[in-house]
């Protein structure tokens, strides 16, 4: 069902956890659907210095969350913004068709976290 890479990220997820007083936090999904992803960003200048996630969801949800954190760590915000859910799935070697839709939201969570960062910046300004 799942690729080896998915199973690897599910078994040994990268960057699990929280960042206290994160610069940006994004959450997508809801418990009703069985998937919630929350991403925390630590941003210095334009660069994502640290990223953590917490996810409630199936194997694909966990693996995509883990994958997206790996993909953005050290990247600029602009680089992060172009990462799509499809790109995350691709980086994992693909997802089962049934999962492409429902559990493939990690990039959305990332973008929500960036938006949160921007919102906070605006308030500060």
């Amino acid at each position, binding site marked *: 069902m799942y690729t080896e890479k998915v199973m690897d990220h599910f078994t040994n997820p990268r960057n699990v956890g*929280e960042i206290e007083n994160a610069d940006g936090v994004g959450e997508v999904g809801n418990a009703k659907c*069985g*998937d*919630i992803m*929350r991403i925390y960003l630590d941003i210095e200048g334009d660069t994502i210095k640290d990223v953590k996630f917490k996810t*409630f969801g*199936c*194997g694909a949800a*966990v693996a995509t969350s883990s994958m997206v954190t790996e993909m953005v760590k050290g990247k600029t915000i602009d680089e992060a913004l172009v990462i799509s859910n499809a790109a995350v799935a691709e980086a994992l070697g693909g997802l089962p068709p049934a999962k492409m839709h*429902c559990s493939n939201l990690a990039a959305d969570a990332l973008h929500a976290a960036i938006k949160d960062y921007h919102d906070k910046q605006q308030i500060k300004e």
Partner: protein
Amino acid sequence: MKRIYLDHSATTPVDPEVAGLMMTYYTEKYGNPSSVHGFGREAKQALEEARKQVAELIGATPQEVVFTSGGTEADNIAILGTVEAKRNKGKHIITSCIEHHAVLETCEYLEKNGFDLTIIPVDEEGIFSVEDVRKAIRPDTILISMMHANNEVGSIQPIAEIGKLAKEHGIVFHVDAVQSFGKIPIQVNEMNIDLLTISSHKIYGPKGVGALYVRKGVRLIPLIHGGGQEKKRRSGTENLPGIIGFGKACELAGQRMAEDAEYLKKLRDKLINGIVERIDYVKINGPLGEKRLPNNVNVSIQFVEGESLLLSLDMLGIAASSGSACTSGSLDPSHVLLAMGLIHEIAHGSLRFSLGRHNTEEEIDYVLEQLPKIVERLRMMSPLYDQVLREQKQAQ
């Protein structure tokens, strides 16, 4: 890696004695039961022997047993065949909200085609009430289709009482007994059952075989037309090795039922109690004690998702199943758990362990050792668990 199979409600291994017998019919006694010659006659005789073995386990006569390709087909024949035969009598059907998809989807197909459907609810233990069925009966009710024991939470239903009711009102009564058959006693006469669905691969028989008990005198329009096998009730060359395997599995189930049930209840309760003792924020779904199938354990584990639990168990060689939407490809979690009043997030985090004859105490111990660690790991990853962690911190 050691593999621990705890998904016997999905399917069972075939008993070696059953499989051995089948082999003979694949390679040596391979005749078509419809043939006149010796190969055919020995096939025919074996077919009728198997029919007896099946009939015996439910207190029926062999003539009342129609072999099918499985439980799903038997459910379809029962429901579609009855409404087709009773078309002129009415168009109201009663079923329950916890039926297997084989019944529910079929009833919903009929609803789309102009039939009226009443779907009986269940209580929080997953049991429907006789009173609700009584109230649902209308003058144009032609069929009541309700299951004997639920496949997800193991709840055993008041089938005999509903049978009495159906009989009083002259309504055809179909019972899906796929999960109870071979595990707890069924007597079609005492229970006033007109049509009974059973399946082989849930009782250590082969996949691809099942049967519909059809009470003498109950008319059905066939679903599958052709050579007129099974007394014209189900056409198609008989799956003879499968049927023979099914017959043998029934014989063995009859011999072992009491002993198996006692043993499985012990394992079941050990697993249930162990989980409740070792893991916080869990809820056992379905009734406890005698109203529960001997081999069913169903638990919701809060703050984590079912498929993640399954995958984690699987990596340790433990095979279970889940009511999570993610395991079924649908968007909603188990319709059974929802019908029992569970909210979505709790239903998503449910696990079913269904035990079998070959499971051991050691296997249960292993699950009880590993499951808490898995839950802990997934909870630490879950944003829903934050709240609990925070409360724990405050309490310290």
